[in-house]
């Protein structure tokens, strides 16, 4: 059987700009308000979220700036020039491992949330496997396909985040938002740490290589960060204003509960949350598919093999196995946290390492 071949494997800058928010908006958006709220008081967490957005935007710009100095070069190529080949291989291996972990986490969380809210009889294994198979199908095709799905889904995700916010306005109360500025500095920092929402810029290490002329890329991807920043901010404000800080920090998935609270007058649509789930599963799918795709891309790069389908199919069991490792909800969320932090700090570490060594050894890009 031969699959349908798209015309090219190139990414446009606009596609990369959309890929970044698509990768960032995943499962974390559903539980993020709880984690931030529990570290802060009142609405103060929103400053942490915005600060985290600014930090991530800065790092994104820096990473993009650095990588775009090596246009059309794969990670392995430019990394080898900077830190010699063996080290580059080890670095890529760890990247691959991270992407596999991210994909596994998204798959597992989706199955868990689905089991709580949508299908309580279906075993987690079955739900995960079906979701994973769809991801395998998407990744097995062309990369352009995944990017087009990103483009297609992101407007819906944005629209529904706004709908969730605005349809809850009648629940908002001023006394939920106050007292402002009562969090101590430690709380802000904790909140900032918890709202880092995945080091999404990690995807830039690999995807910029596919951009034809990455001159404007740093600017474009930094603009892309605006989408998750605005989205996370309104979801956070919505949760706090509708529920108050103390309730938000006690709800397991505040964003889902926020969607469940919507009452459309007239009873035409009593269960808005079902539509919200449909939309958010699309967001989770994008994140998982891209993480999977990046893992495949990394392996392809290391093995220098063109047989993409073999790689796609052979890492599927690994992803599934890792996804099934956590035994309960608590372990799943720890798994997610660890993956998030590690990918964030690893990406920063690699960036610093490359910038310093490139300067030291005088490695110059050709872009």
């Amino acid at each position, binding site marked *: 059987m031969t699959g349908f071949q798209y015309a090219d494997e190139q990414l446009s800058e606009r596609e990369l700009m959309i890929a970044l928010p698509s990768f960032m908006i995943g499962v974390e958006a559903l539980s993020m308000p709880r984690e931030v709220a529990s570290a802060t*008081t*009142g609405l103060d967490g929103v400053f942490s979220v915005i600060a985290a957005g600014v930090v991530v935007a800065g790092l994104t710009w820096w990473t993009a700036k650095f990588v775009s100095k090596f246009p059309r070069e794969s990670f392995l190529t430019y990394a080898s020039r900077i830190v010699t080949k063996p080290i580059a291989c080890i670095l890529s291996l760890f990247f691959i491992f991270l992407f596999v972990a991210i994909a596994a986490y998204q798959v597992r969380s989706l199955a868990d949330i689905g089991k709580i809210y949508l299908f309580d009889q279906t075993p987690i294994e079955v739900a995960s496997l079906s979701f994973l198979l769809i991801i395998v199908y998407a990744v097995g095709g062309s990369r352009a396909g995944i990017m087009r799905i990103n483009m297609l889904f992101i407007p819906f995700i944005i629209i529904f985040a706004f709908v969730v916010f605005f349809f809850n306005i009648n629940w908002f109360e001023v006394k939920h938002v106050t007292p402002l500025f*009562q969090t101590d500095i430690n709380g802000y920092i904790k909140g900032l740490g918890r709202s880092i929402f995945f080091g999404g810029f990690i995807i830039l290490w690999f995807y910029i290589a596919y951009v034809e002329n990455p001159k404007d890329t740093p600017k474009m991807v930094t603009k892309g960060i605006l989408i998750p920043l605005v989205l996370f901010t309104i979801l956070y404000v919505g949760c706090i204003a509708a529920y108050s800080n103390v*309730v938000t920090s*006690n709800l397991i998935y505040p964003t889902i509960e926020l969607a*469940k*609270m919507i009452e459309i007058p007239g009873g035409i649509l009593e269960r808005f949350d079902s539509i919200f789930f449909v939309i958010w599963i699309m967001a989770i799918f994008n994140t998982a598919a891209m993480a999977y795709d990046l893992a495949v891309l990394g392996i392809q790069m290391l093995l220098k093999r063109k047989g993409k389908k073999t790689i796609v199919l052979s890492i599927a069991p690994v992803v599934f196995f890792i996804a099934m490792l956590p035994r309960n909800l608590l372990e799943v969320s720890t798994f997610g946290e660890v993956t998030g932090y590690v990918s964030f700090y690893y990406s920063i570490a690699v960036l610093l390492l490359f910038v310093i060594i490139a300067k030291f050894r005088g490695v110059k890009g050709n872009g």
Partner: protein
Amino acid sequence: MARRLLSCSFLVLTMIFLSGCWDENPIENFGFVIGSALDLGEDHSSETPSVTLTNQFAVPSGFTVPSQGGGGNQQAYKNLSVTGNSVFHMNRDMSKETSLTPIYDHLKLIVVSSELAQQEKMFSSVVDFFLRDHEMRRGIRIVVSESSAKSIFDIVPKYEKTPALYVNSIMKNNTKTIEVIPSVRTAKLHRDLLNKSSFVIPIVKVKGEEIKSEGGAIFNGPNNKMVGKLNAFETKGYNLIKGKINGGVINFQVDDQLMVYEIEDTSSKVKINPENPDQVKIDIKIEISGSVGEMFGHKTLINEDYQKEIKQKIEESIEELIMNVVSKAQQEWKVDIFGFDQKLKSSHSGKWRGMEGDWNAGKQLFTKSVINVSSQVTLEHIGSTDRTKDRGVK
């Protein structure tokens, strides 16, 4: 060829396995719970008192308009009671008794009997299920019934399909008048329970064939039990402090004649000065605008002095209403039901941290606070006529 056959048969086989649905559950097997009533059970042998859960299930065929000559009026609901120690458990038992699995996605109303609410720490335990379960929405209305909660579900409503929906629409429609306590929904209840603040839940009563919302049940936050009741008079004072009313009347006397003031809009401003925690100063300022709705006297109203007198009388009666409920809250129930604690927390959070545990409980600082009321009334208009009777008649 053999390969083609193999792949074909594989596809057919997949089709068999993929077409199933684990959670397939025909809608006829679901019992849609629209109301839950919680009563104290009769069994007092164990340490935690037993609870009786009565669920009102919707019967979908009763909601449709009967076709001509059809079986007549079918009841649109069905009540089912189970007694046990945990709500979740009773829920399980309920599906054993009927062929239906209760699902709570469309639950509209929770009724708790005052008898159950007065038990120590029972209230938060029984509502836990309604806050925890994933099927629950956060806009469920909650009321306290004066008699048994079950009796609320037993009346035959005239204007609505089921008793639960009847109570729900009563609660929904009178939210902003001075006479009734605004309805409480689970999202707000959850907040108050977590904050350990005291709150008021509307009381419903059965009156013949009708249900009436009258007064409120006062819950002590730290103890989490019902400690008293607001009567109709106190309810007015409570609502005035809470503000945001746009309907209702205030009766007062001018020259021994009854006069009715119709409220159109109110706003209340609460200023708290916690300089001295043992004597917190609370100033309540209320502004009301409204009109004269009815008068028994015959004096002309188009007279500045007389209007001034009327305004003063209204102000007096408003202040009386408020002071009455405030002093009762301080002396009898000893709980802050007006949300002063939230106000303190948001505008004096530094001080609040020191007195948090002593406001409703401990040293009971609320009962020692000094509360002042002032009001300002504006008379917007006097109706479409000045007088309706001549002074000759008496």
